[in-house]
C-alpha cells in the first residue's frame, strides 16, 4: 500500500467511525431521559459521579409527556449512556485516524499538507473535532451533543471528498513557510468557528422550542428534539465564547495571508476574490461581537449574524475556489 492509499484508507475509517459515533450519540441523546433537566449537573458532575446522579434522577424529575414516554423506551438510560461513551470513544478513534491520515500525507508528499482544497477541508474537519473533544473533555458541553458536532464534521468531510485531489507537489507560490502560518491559522479558525456555528444553531432551535412551550403550542418533530438541549442561555454563551476565541485567530490568519501575498504576489492586498470574502467574513464576525453588546434586540439577532459569518466562510472555501478566478488557485482544484 502506498502512502497515499494508506492516507485514504484512514480517511475512510474516520468517516465510518464518525458515522457510527453519530448513531451512538443519537441513542444517548434520545434515551438518556434525565438529560434535559440536569444539563447543568451533568456538566458539573465528574464521570464517576454519573451513576449516582442517575439513580437520583430516575426517581424524581419532571413528568411531562416526553418523560412518561421514556418509561416505555426500549433502551434504559444507563444503556443509553453506555452508547454515549461508545460514541465518544469512536470519536476519539476517528479523530486519531484523521490525524494519522494527514501525517501520512505529509510523509508521502514530503511537504506541508495544506496544498489543495481537499487537504484544507480535511484540516478544517480535524480542527473542528479537536475543538469539540476539548470542550467535552473539560466538561464545557455534555457528551450527547456530540451528535451535532459529529454530524457537522462528517458533512465537512463528505464535502471534501467532492474536491478530492491526488496528493501531489505544490505550485511555486505555495512553496513557502507562510503556508504553515497562514493556512494553519485559517484552518484552525474555520474549525473552531464550525463548532461555534453549531452552537448558534442549537441556541436558535432551543430558543424557538422554549417560545413554543411558553406559548403552550404543540411541539412536533423535529422541534421536540430540542427538549434535551442545554438551556438557551447556556448555548448562547458557549456560542459567544467560541467566537471570541476564534476571532483573533481569524484576524491573525488574514494578516498572515496578506504578509504572504506581499512576498508571493508583490502586494499585500488587492481585493482578489478570496481576499474580498475573507474581509467580508471578518467584518460579519466583528458585527457579531458588536451585536452582542448593542442592546437586547441586536443581541437576539446575534446568533443569526454568527451563522451568516459561517455561511460566508463556507462560501469563501467553496464557491470562491471553484467559481471565481483569482490568485488563490490550488493545484488540481
Amino acid at each position: 500500500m502506498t502512502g497515499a492509499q494508506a492516507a485514504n484508507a484512514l480517511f475512510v475509517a474516520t468517516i465510518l467511525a464518525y458515522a457510527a459515533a453519530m448513531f451512538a450519540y443519537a441513542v444517548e441523546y434520545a434515551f438518556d431521559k434525565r438529560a434535559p433537566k440536569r444539563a447543568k449537573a451533568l456538566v458539573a458532575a465528574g464521570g464517576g459521579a454519573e451513576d449516582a446522579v442517575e439513580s437520583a434522577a430516575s426517581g424524581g424529575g419532571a413528568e411531562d409527556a416526553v418523560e412518561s414516554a421514556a418509561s416505555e423506551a426500549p433502551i434504559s438510560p444507563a444503556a443509553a449512556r453506555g452508547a454515549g461513551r461508545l460514541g465518544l470513544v469512536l470519536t476519539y478513534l476517528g479523530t486519531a485516524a484523521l490525524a494519522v491520515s494527514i501525517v501520512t500525507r505529509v510523509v508521502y508528499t514530503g511537504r506541508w499538507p495544506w496544498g489543495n482544497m481537499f487537504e484544507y477541508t480535511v484540516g478544517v474537519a480535524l480542527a473542528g473535532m479537536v475543538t469539540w473533544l476539548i470542550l467535552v473533555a473539560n466538561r464545557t458541553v455534555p457528551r450527547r451533543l456530540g451528535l451535532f458536532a459529529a454530524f457537522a464534521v462528517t458533512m465537512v468531510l463528505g464535502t471534501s471528498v467532492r474536491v478530492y485531489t491526488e496528493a501531489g507537489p505544490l505550485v511555486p507560490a505555495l512553496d513557502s513557510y507562510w503556508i504553515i502560518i497562514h493556512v494553519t491559522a485559517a484552518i484552525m479558525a474555520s474549525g473552531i468557528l464550525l463548532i461555534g456555528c453549531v452552537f448558534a444553531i442549537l441556541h436558535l432551535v432551543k430558543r424557538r422550542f422554549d417560545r413554543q412551550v411558553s406559548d403552550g403550542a404543540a411541539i412536533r418533530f423535529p422541534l421536540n428534539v430540542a427538549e434535551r438541549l442545554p438551556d438557551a442561555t447556556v448555548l448562547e454563551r458557549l456560542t459567544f465564547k467560541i467566537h471570541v476565541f476564534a476571532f483573533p485567530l481569524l484576524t491573525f490568519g488574514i494578516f498572515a495571508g496578506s504578509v504572504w501575498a506581499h512576498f508571493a504576489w508583490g502586494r499585500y492586498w488587492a481585493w482578489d476574490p478570496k481576499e474580498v470574502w475573507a474581509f467580508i467574513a471578518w467584518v460579519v464576525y466583528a458585527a457579531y461581537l458588536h451585536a452582542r453588546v448593542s442592546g437586547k434586540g441586536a443581541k437576539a439577532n446575534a446568533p443569526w449574524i454568527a451563522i451568516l459569518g459561517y455561511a460566508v466562510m463556507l462560501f469563501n472555501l467553496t464557491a470562491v475556489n471553484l467559481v471565481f478566478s483569482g490568485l488563490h488557485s490550488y493545484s488540481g482544484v
Partner: protein
Amino acid sequence: MTATLAPPPRRKAGPAKRLRSFARRWWHQLTSMRTALLLLLALALAAIPGSTFPQRAISSVDVADYYTAHPDLAPWLDRLWAFDVYTSPWFSAIYLLLMISLVGCIIPRLGVHWRALRAPVPDAPRRMSILPYHRVVEGDLNQSRARAVFKQRRWRTAVREAEDGTVTIAAEKGHLRETGNLLFHTSIIFMLVGIAVGSLGTWYGNRILSEGKSYCNNLQQYDEYGLGSWVEETDLPRFCLTLNAFDAEFTDGGPTAYDADVSYETPSGDGDYDLEVNHPLNLEGTNVFLIGHGYTAVVTYTDRYGQTQTLHQEFLAMDAALNSEGAFKFPDVNVDPATGVVDPDAEVGFDAILVPTFDDATEMLLGSEPEPNNPVLALTAYTGDLGLGDGLPESVYAVNPDQIASGGLEQVNDQVEVIGVGDSMTLPDGSSLTFDGVEQYAVLQVRHDPGGPIVLIGALLLLGGLLPALAVRRRRYWIRWNPDGTVETAGLNRNDYDGLDEECDELTALIAGNEPPRTDNDTHDDGDRA
C-alpha cells in the same frame, strides 16, 4: 425643541441652536453601537460586487472583456462603479461613516478610560448582599495580609475607613480590557492611514524580461505601470536589472519552482540575486517580485531579397499548459537593396500560437504539458500594411485585426501552418520564417509602497489590542470588616464572565491563610448568571 418649551428669554432657540441640537442628535446616532453594527454589515454587503464583477484595479483586460461580452449592461454597471467597487463613492461613504463613527466612539471612551484608570476603586454598596457574589466570612481576615495578597496579584485597591469603624478594601482588576479595546479600535484607523499613505505614495511597474535582456527603472521601460498622486516620474530610484537565466521546474505537468537568475546595478552597488516566488529582491527601498513567466519564441525572417531579421518575441500564456499566443511583425522588410525603395505594402506579420509540447500522435494542436519538450509554432501569415505607424496603441501579441478587416493586410495561408524548431515556413514571394528556438521570460513587478510598514505596525497593534480586549475581564472584589466583628466579601463582574465565584472564593481563601475558607453561602450565588 421649541421656544415655548424652553422659557429663558435670553436663550431663544434660534436656527443656530436648532442646528446644533440636530447635529448633536445625529452625532449620537452615528456613534451608537447599533449604527456601527449596521455600518459593519453594510460594509460586508458592499464588498460583494467587487468579487463578482471584474475590477479595473486588478485587471483592466477583464473589464474590457466584460464590455465585449455584455455591451448593453456594462456601461450601466460602470455608471454604478461596479468595476471600481473599492474606490466607488458608495463604498467609500460606508467606510468613511464607519471611521467617523469609530472616532466618535473612541474619543469619549478614551476620556472615560483615562479617568477610570486614575479614580480610586469605588466602594461597595452599603448592603453588600445585593451584589452577585456575597459571602459572610466566619472568623477573622487579616487586613495587612489582604493588602499583600492584592498587591501580589496586582489588583488595584482602595481602603476606606468609616467613622463607625467599618473598614472596606475595594479591589479591582481588568482595566487592560478597555485599554486593549481602545488600542484595537484605534489601530483600525492607523491601518487606514497606512493604506491611504500607500495609495498616494506607491508606484509600480510590470516588465516582461526575456533571458539575456536588461532594462532600467524608468516608466518608458515598463509594459504597465501606475503612480500614486504623490509620486513624480523623476522620483523613481535608479537601477537596472538583467535576467541572466530563467528556470522553471515541472513535476507531473505542474510547475514546482521558478528561478530567475538576475543581476542588478544600482548607484550603491551591483550584485546578483536568485529571484524566486516568495523571495523578492529589495533594491533602493523598492521590491522586485517574480510574478510570472512564459515563453519567448526566437524566429528569423529572410525576406525576398535575402536580408534576414531575428526577433525574440514574448508570448502570452493562454492556459496552464502554457500554450501561448503572440505575433511576429516585420514592418521594415522587403526593401530592395539595389534601389532602396520602400514598398509600404510589403510589410509582413504572423499571428502565432506557441505550443510547448506538441503531440504528433493526436489531432490536437494545443498541448497538455507546459515543458518545452516539442515546441511548435502554428502560423498565419499576412502581407500588406501592418498599420503600425498610425499612432494608435495596439497589442504586441496580435497582428492588427482592423487592418485585416479593412483589407490593408492580406492573409497568405488559408490553413494554419505548423512548424517545429529548425523548420521554416515559406511564403509565395519566396521569403521565409524560420523557428530558431524557445527562450523563457520572467514577469517582474517592481513595487514601492511606503504605506506597507504603517499598515503592518497597525496590524500588530490591532492583534495586540484584540487579545486583551477579548480575554481580560474587568471585575471587583470587596472585603468589609464590620464594627460588629463580622467580615463580608463581595464580587462584581463588569463583563460577561463565568469564573467570578471561584475567583472570589480563591481570593478569600488566600487572604484567610492556607486553610480552606470557612464561608457561608449566600442565596445569590449559585445558579446560572447568564
